[in-house]
Each structure stands twice: as C-alpha cells, then as structure tokens.
C-alpha cells in the first residue's frame, strides 16, 4: 500500500509540474496588451498630454522589465524569419529565460506576484481559499450526507420514489446560474419573498463564518446542484447490490431491507461512487465561480476567472497548480479508497 501510494504521488507531482509548465508557457506566450501592462488605452482620450509612440514604446519596455516578461520565454526560441525568406533559425537562450526563473522561484516556494496589483500570489490564493473552503467544504459534507440518506431511502422503493426521482432529474438538468438566480430572485426579493440578505459585510479579521445566515442560499445552490448525481448513482449502485447473491442471503436470514442496505450492500455500493466523490475535492479548491458571482463571495472561482480575463498570469498559473494538485491528490485518494473498500481491486 505504501509503495503504491508513493508511486502514485510521484506520478501526480510529475503531472502537476507538466500541467503548470504547459499553462505557464501557453499563457506567457500570448502578448500582453497595454492595459495588461498598466498603460492607458491609446485609443481613449485621457487627461494629461497624449504620449508619443516612442514614449509609449519606452513605457511598454519598462513595464515588461518590471513584470519580468522582457526576457525570452524558454530555453530556446525561434528568431524572426530572415528578410529573404526561409525557415527561422532556432536560438539557445541559456538560463536567462522566464521559465527558468519561474521554476527556480517555485522550487523555493515563491509563487510570484500578481501582475495587476503586485500582491504575492500565495496571499491572494490564501485569502480566496479562506472563503471558498468553508463554503464548498460545508456544501460537500452536506451533499454527501444528504445523498447517503436519500439514496438509502430511495433504494427501499418508497411511495415517493417517482416524484423524488423526477425532482432530482429536474435539478440535474437545471444550469447552476439559473438555479442561483432563481433562488436569489425568489427568496431575496422584496417583491416576492424577502427572507434572505443579498449582501453581507465582513471586515478584516472576520472569516467567512461571519457572513452567517447569508451563506444559506449559496450553500443551498451548491448542494442542490451536486446532490442529484451522487444520489442517483448511489441509488442505482445500491439497487444493483441488493440483487446480488449475498444480499439475498442476508434477507433470507431474516434481516430487514434497511439492515441489509446499511450493513451489507452500502460498502460495495460506495466503490463506484468514489470517482464522483473524488471530483468534489478539486471543486472544493477551485470554488464555484457562478455561485460566488451571483452571491458576491470573494472566493477562488471568481479570483481565477478574473485572473484569466485580466491576463494576470502568475495568479492564474498558481491557481491551476493548486487545483491540478487537488485533482491529482483526489485521484490518488480515490484509488486508495477503492482498495480499502474492496481489497480485491489490485
């Protein structure tokens, strides 16, 4: 088990490095616009005197130097094509390149600073995670508990099974944005039901818990979105296990269906559910951009979406690294969990 774990962890680290490198090279390969460099848009009428083309070029050069994007991107690069035509020659750039500096800094634990505001990436990610993890963590915990309770109940084929399945199927078909906006417009609207606040203030030093009751609607959105898939999968899995020989034997010995479900079939039924549960871990870290947007929560989803929109590459690469690591860790844990639940899995 230990060897397996270390082997998978090693593979995961390599995969995260490859993923982060790819995102770094792809994102830095795109040219930064004047706005991304902190310069005004040349096509707008600004106050002060308009800068000459030469002054703008110098300002761009200075900004690139300050942001560390003036050096070549990678160890080798292709030169501009020769005027006479023909293929452009390759050039060796040595260690003075952006990728080398970034990798060295990452290995030293320095994730860089945001292009937009100069704040350390780790601090930005940390602040966003402090909002996201409690919310998504609570949502994941609640979803798992509800899915378990619901699936166990539905597997016993109660009278309300059909309407419950229809409701779950309906919820699964509903896009998250529609669900979130629907809840907002129906439960936080003075014209309909004014039950919940739309915005809640917290100040420095107060965690997301200070938002208190304000979190009910975002939590409800996340739970209602994730619940159908887990419940339906577990219910089907439980139904399958109930039809197997060992479950029949248990019933023949006089156990009630409820006891058979809980004591005998649940463990086996959980195995196919593990990949779905593993998917929750990266979602915990990545946040829920739609819910954060609709309910004005300063979480990871919004941070990464805005970093991508504003070309804030250090924050984007840091976020991808974190989410990628969480996903790979989740896969390793899912494998280990499956082995634990069913030792026959080699």
């Amino acid at each position, binding site marked *: 088990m230990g060897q397996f774990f270390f082997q998978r962890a090693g593979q995961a680290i390599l995969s995260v490095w490859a993923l982060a490198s790819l995102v770094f090279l792809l994102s830095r390969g795109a040219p*930064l*616009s*004047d*706005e*991304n*460099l*902190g*310069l005004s*848009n*040349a*096509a*707008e*009428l*600004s*106050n*002060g*005197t*308009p*800068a000459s*083309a030469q*002054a*703008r070029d*110098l*300002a761009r*050069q*200075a*900004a690139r*130097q*300050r942001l560390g994007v003036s050096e070549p991107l990678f160890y080798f690069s292709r030169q501009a094509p020769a005027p006479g035509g023909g293929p452009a020659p390759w050039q060796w750039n040595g260690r003075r390149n952006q990728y080398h500096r970034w990798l060295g800094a990452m290995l030293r634990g320095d994730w860089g600073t945001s292009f937009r*505001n*100069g*704040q350390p990436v780790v601090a*930005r990610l940390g602040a*966003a995670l402090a909002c996201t993890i409690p919310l998504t963590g609570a949502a994941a915990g609640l979803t798992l508990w509800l899915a378990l309770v619901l699936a166990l109940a539905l597997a016993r084929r109660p009278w309300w099974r059909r309407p419950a399945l229809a409701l779950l199927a309906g919820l699964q078909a509903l896009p998250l944005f529609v669900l979130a*906006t629907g809840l*907002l*417009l129906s439960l936080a609207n*003075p*014209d309909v039901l004014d*039950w*919940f*606040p*739309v*915005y809640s*203030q*917290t*100040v*420095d030093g107060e965690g997301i818990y200070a938002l*208190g*009751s304000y979190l*009910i609607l975002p939590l409800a959105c996340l739970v209602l979105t994730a619940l159908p898939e887990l419940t339906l999968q577990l219910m089907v899995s439980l139904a399958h296990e109930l039809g197997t020989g060992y479950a029949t034997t248990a019933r023949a010995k006089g156990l009630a269906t409820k006891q058979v479900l809980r004591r005998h079939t649940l463990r086996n039924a959980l195995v196919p559910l593990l990949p779905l549960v593993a998917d929750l871990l990266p979602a915990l870290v990545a946040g829920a951009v739609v819910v954060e*947007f*609709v309910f*004005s*929560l*300063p979480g990871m989803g919004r*941070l990464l979406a*805005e970093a991508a*929109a504003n*070309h804030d590459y250090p924050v984007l690469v840091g976020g991808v690294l974190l989410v990628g690591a969480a996903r790979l860790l989740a896969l390793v844990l899912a494998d280990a969990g499956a082995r634990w639940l069913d030792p026959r899995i080699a």
Partner: protein
Amino acid sequence: MKLSLLAGLCTILLTACSGPQEHVPDSVRIRWDSDPETLDPLQQPNQSSSDADNLLHLSLLQIDYAKSSYSPGLADSLPRIKLVGDSLTLLTYCLRKAATWDNGQPVLASDVAFTLKLMQAPGLANEGIRTQFNFIQELQPDPNNTRRFTLVCRGQATDFAHASGDFFILPEAALDARGTLRRYHLIDLINRPVNVAPDTVLAALARRYATIAPGQHPERLPGCGPYSLVSWKKDHLLRFQRKPQWWADQLSPLPPALQAHPSQINFLIIPNSASAVMALRRGDVDLYPNIPARDFNRLRHSAKAQQTLSFYNTLSHNVVTAGFNTRRPALADHFTRQALALLFDVPGLMNATQQGLGQRTVSIISPNTGRNYADSLPLLPFAPSRAVALLQQAGWRQKVAGPAARWTRQSPTGETQQLALQVRYRAEETTFETIGLQFRAAAAQLGIAVELRPTEASAFTHKLQTGDFDLYIKSIMGNPYTFNLVPILHSEAVGAGNLTGFGTPASDRLVEAVAVAQSPAVRSQLLRKLQVLLREEMPMVPLFFQYNRLVANRRLQNLYPSSIRPGYAAAAITWGPRSIL
C-alpha cells in the same frame, strides 16, 4: 437527533429572515462591480481604483462636480499661465496654507517636486502616469515661499492648465525622509534610458516603495485626503473612515471640491447586476452607479421602488462609435464609408440597447460641450436607399439588383474588389453585438456580406491596432476637458490610437491646431471645422452618447450627478431627513 437538527435549521432560517443590516449613521454604501485591485496613487488601472484614491489623496486641482470643471484642491487657486516663446508654458501654483499631512506637517512645494520625480523614477509601477505627465519638465520652487512653485511644461496647450494639476501629491517625508531624490533633475529622470540599470539611490527608492506597498497597504502612505482606509476585504468590501480632524475643515467657506460629509463610505463589491438591484431594493446598498438601462427603466416605472429610490440620468462623455478601416481598398473612398454609415438605425439601436436613454450625435464631440459641438450638421438618417446611390457613386455595381447579388468594382489597377465586411467588437458586450446584428441585417438587404467577429478584450485592441478588421464597434471614453484628438485622429497615431488609419494633411493640421489652440473660442471654431471634415470623410460613425445612470436611496442628497466619471461625488453625499421616505 432529527428533532434537534430540524430545530437548528429553523433557528438559522429565522436568523436569516432578518431585514437589512444596520449601519453606521451618516455612512454611505455604494455598489462597485469589481475590486479596485490596487490603491497605488501612481497606478490606477480602473475607475474604482481612481475613485478610492480620490478619498485618500488630493491633487493640486480637484473636480468640482457641481460645475463639471476643475477647481483648486491643494492649490489655493487655478494656476497662473505664462507662455514662453512658442514651445514652453509656465504654470505657477501656490499651495493652501492650511494644507497639512496627517502628522500636521505642511504640504510644501518640495512634496510636489518629489511626487513629479517619483512619477518618473525607474522600477515603480508608474509607466502609465509617466507618459501622461512627462510634459512637466521642471519644478521651479519660489525661494521666498515654500508653498509656491512654477511648473515648466514642454509645449503649449490650453489643456495644460488643468492637466498639470491632476495628479496626487505624495509626502516626501514618508517615502524619502532623507531627500535622496533631490539630487536628481526631473528632466534627467524623464530622459533616462529604460535599459540602463538604476543607480543605488533609485534602486533603494524602488525597494522602499515596494516594501511600503501603498497599492495594498494605503495606510502606510499617509495622504492629505479626507478619508483613511480602515478595511479592505478583496473582492468584497472597502471601508473608508472620515478623518476626525482634516485640514480642510478649517477652511471657510469650504470649497465645493473639498467637501467630505459621510462619516464612513463603504464600497460593496457586487459583480452581478441582478444581485446589486436586489441589494438596492432591500436597502443593503444606498447608491448604484452605472446601473444597466433595463434595470434603471424597470425600477423607475415601479411604484414600489419609487417610494424608496431616486433616479438620476446625466449625459456621459462616452460615445458609441463604428469605425472603418480606411486602409482597406474597399473602404478607402469616402463615398463608400458614407453609404455604409447610412445603414445604422440609430434611434432603433438606442431603444434596443439603452432603452431610449441615449443622445444622438453628429460627432465624437459631446453635445454637452456647448459651442464646440457642430450642431449645424444634420443627424445621420437610416437610409438604405440613399446608401445604394452612394455606393453606385463610389463605383460599386451589382450584376442584378437585390440582396442575393454581391457588390463589386474595378480598382484603378484593374483588380476586382468585393464589398464584404468583417465587423469586430468586444465579446460579451451586448450593446455592440446588437449594433453589429442590426448593421448586418441592413447590409444583407443590400447584398453586402457582413461577418461578425466578437473578440476577446485584450486581443480586440491588438486586432484594431494592427488593422485586422473592416469595421469596429466600440465606445470612446472622453471627458469635458480634453480636446486633444491627436492620439485618435492624427496620421502619426496610426498603429496606436488611430484605429481607422485615417489621416490627411488637412485633417492632421486641424487636429494639431485644436490641440494647441490658445483660446476656447479659437478651439471651438477649429473643432467645428474638424467635425465637418470628419462628417465628409466619415472614417468613423458616431452613433450615440450614453447616459450615466444612478439610482440612490431617496434620502441621499448632494450626489452631484455628473457627466464626469464616476458620475457622482461620493464624499459630498449627505443624508436627508427620514420624513423624505
């Protein structure tokens, strides 16, 4: 167990079912759609950042929203202007005697000199402001008065009078206590080569500035503005507290530009407009600037909303414009451009995108600017039949009349040109998309193929600057003071701000003359000539000016709704009596 769980859930729900949060009396809560990102006074990447810095710091001149003009801020009066020869302008300022930093030390000419040098120092995030203010080449202090100084500016333009006073003054003592920057001349810093490594003094200054990090910790850089930042929760909330003793409180009468009434100003960051409207309705937000036209109209016509909210609508200086790539052979002649300009149904577009809340215009100069606006020019009609006649005048022919046949013509070199357009606009901008769709539909009726290309924001600017488009749709953000149109209309700006690529010797001469005009009357005359020329050449089609729309709690007073961004004066706001509601 189940009972206790149910009881717990009920308690949470009951707690949730409370009304709007109580807030500090006299405080104002304003909705922003995004975080300012940085409060560095040298770098304001967005409107929120600029608005926040305006509460922390002061400039020599401040905007008086009541008059929509600049008025003295830290300076005791507008600058005295003296022209030297034909290439220099001297602007003499004197700082107010009462102006002090938070520690009681006076604001002096040496602080202004330090700020100007800081704006040009290497290694700081000042590249934007550096290019904007490099026309100020020297500060000459008055040897007899530590508050009086003269700015020596390169060039001559009426804009200098206000542009020279529109930057935040920073305290030398907080950033450079030993006065190490005093040994440098401003002009040397301006002309310093970018690729030369900074010397030890400048490098130390950059390190010191980075350590203080005023962009993230504005409390470490005391300003002489009326507010201090007490809380900043990223992407969520900024809270500014009124200083209990601010130097301007002793001025009598208090200049309108230096009013600071609310005890606390909270900027609530609510990115989703639907959520912001709900927050406004519930009383969680007091002021919602730049509200979408649809929501503005809906609330304005709601009897329930009218009981608690006030509505303000002022003409902005943002003009929605379509621009032709005049470098394309098919669009190189003005007849073709004039024809295509007649395919925009502007009244219909204003109704569709602005709910009718816009103002038609004949040019990119705002109708609000009085005599500068060429009101003698007629508004462009939506006239596809006249467009056909103009296209024929431009040499375009259809083999068969009708929407199925394409328009072609022979170029002077004998090549066959086809009239087909690629329209670019910023992706996810519904206003521009609607304009593009209407134009495409009108063009299709005439047999002109139009392809819409919504483009990602940063790629959009690059595509326009490199000429990869036939027609763009975007808004030009202006202000009531700047009439220097060189960056967007001069032929030397092609490849940068002149996106249409248009520029003739006559237009260049006019644009240059407007920029350096010494009197408002002369400038108005030149601007009118320029507008007539632009109408004739039609490199761009000004469609309509947008409105600044504000919705506020009915009790809020002294908002000074204005055409100038952000469209209101946050620090001037006061609360009226409760009986108003």
